[in-house]
């Protein structure tokens, strides 16, 4: 067992971060499944992190309550900004949500008395156990899996395919998009809350533009054709910098290069069910 303990001592954090990153990638998958490029999930993660941390630190809330708070707070905010924001589409939606992310970041910076401002929150109790993260990922995957196979998942696909036609099929496009947006926010908030109680310290800089871009990259890299994609993308983007430690100064350069190469050669992402079925069909013909 000592081998495992050693492994965990060194890599435990990476594995747990892998879990929270998977949650983040899945949270943006939801909105991407509707054809929306909404990049506010980093901000929602931040809102969830701060809400949960403040609950445990200032109100001595129990962990489950803090986690719940970390999901409800961003969901509420998403519900508020969703209505005007989701009228936008394409690149405008992306930019508006990115902008919103920066607004949140600056709000955190300027509410020092509550959030500790630029110095962040220190001394968050490290309540997150490995099984919390695993449970969260498994539950979210299960819920999303079932949603995909239901009329709701079909509505997502229809909206992504052709919004106008979807509306004429009796699908309430606005509500469905809101659902994806708010649920995505809650999942991102959960990731943030779990992460906050793992890393002991959180600061406003962690939830801005760069994080938002990273979350999007995980999902697109992994592929949004299926639920495995975002998880794979999260794994790659979490593990790669670690695996490249040996390259010291240049490891992030290699990181970026690998990203570019994957994008160039696998534009639908790594997990692309359509590509797999094409391979299978080709294989079938050869054996015919």
């Amino acid at each position: 067992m000592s081998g495992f303990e050693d492994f965990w001592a060194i890599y435990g954090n990476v594995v747990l971060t892998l879990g929270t990153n998977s949650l983040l990638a899945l949270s943006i998958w939801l909105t991407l499944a509707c054809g929306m490029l909404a990049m506010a999930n980093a901000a929602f993660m931040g809102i969830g992190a701060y809400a949960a941390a403040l609950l445990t630190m200032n109100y001595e809330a129990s962990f489950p309550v803090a986690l719940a708070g970390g999901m409800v707070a961003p969901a509420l905010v998403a519900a508020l900004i969703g209505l005007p924001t989701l009228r936008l589409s394409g690149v405008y939606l992306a930019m508006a949500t990115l902008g919103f992310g920066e607004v949140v970041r600056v709000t955190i910076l300027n509410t020092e008395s509550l959030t500790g401002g630029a110095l962040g929150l220190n001394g968050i109790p490290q309540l997150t156990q490995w099984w919390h993260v695993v449970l969260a990922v498994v539950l979210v995957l299960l819920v999303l899996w079932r949603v995909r196979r239901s009329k709701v998942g079909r509505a997502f696909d229809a909206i992504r395919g052709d919004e106008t036609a979807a509306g004429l099929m009796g699908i309430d496009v606005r509500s469905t998009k809101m659902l994806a947006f708010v649920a995505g926010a809650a999942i991102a908030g959960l990731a943030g809350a779990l992460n906050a109680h793992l890393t002991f310290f959180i600061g406003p800089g962690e939830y801005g533009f760069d994080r938002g871009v990273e979350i999007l990259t995980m999902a697109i890299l992994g592929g949004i054709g299926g639920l495995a994609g975002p998880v794979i993308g999260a794994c790659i983007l979490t593990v790669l910098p670690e695996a490249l430690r040996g390259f010291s100064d240049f490891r992030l350069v290699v990181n970026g290069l690998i990203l570019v190469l994957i994008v160039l050669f696998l534009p639908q992402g790594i997990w692309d069910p359509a590509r797999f079925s094409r391979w299978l069909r080709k294989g079938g013909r050869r054996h015919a």
Partner: protein
Amino acid sequence: MLELTSLSKNFGGLHVLHDVGLSVPEGAIFGLIGPNGAGKTTVFNLITGLLAPTSGGIAFQGQDLLRRRPHEITRLGIARTFQNIRLFKEMTLLENVVVGAYRHMDYGYASLLLGLPRYREHEARARERAHELLGWMKLDHKANDLADNLSYGEQRRLELARALATEPRLLLLDEPVAGMNTGERAELMREILAIRERGYTILMIEHDMQFVMGLCERIAVLNFGRIIACGGPQEIRANEQVIEAYLGREDDEQAEQAQ
């Protein structure tokens, strides 16, 4: 069944429709014809809630359709196909048609999350109905192919199957035979008659005069956003204004067919 009253639509300074009125009785096959740019598709867009009229009223089975969103109008029983075909290209034929059954799948989150019988029943029923409709359109053998891989005529039939899946009372067909050959046209004519036999009402926009004259019991003619004639095929054929509308546009082929 469908009443349009003094319907007008302006886009800024552009008057697309002016004082349009027509009445589609239940069980009828009603044709809306007119030269290109007369405003026919705009009428459809107004009925289905994609656009709001500048003035006038739309009533369906006594219910006011104004200020309702498209999905509400569909749920009231109006379905539509598109001139330039709006299929869900990355889904299979079966999935496309099943989407149409959306509002009839009446199960809640508990059901779908836990896989309860209600969920399974509704899903199974939707799939069966989809196969039935695909069979009716002679597309069932391709049920699991991607919609993108169909020929033009097949895509139009798929759109029709999908529209029928919403269980409408009124079907709006926007140029259903555009791009089809004679054989396919005859086939579709039979299919539309069969659809009507099953109790649906049909309002269609079409350019193909033979098709319209052969199928529709009542025809309204739209020109420059106004209704210039409304009546049975014989009346319309003989109507001076109609002939002029088509001749005036140098639409020779149409004018010949109208006579």
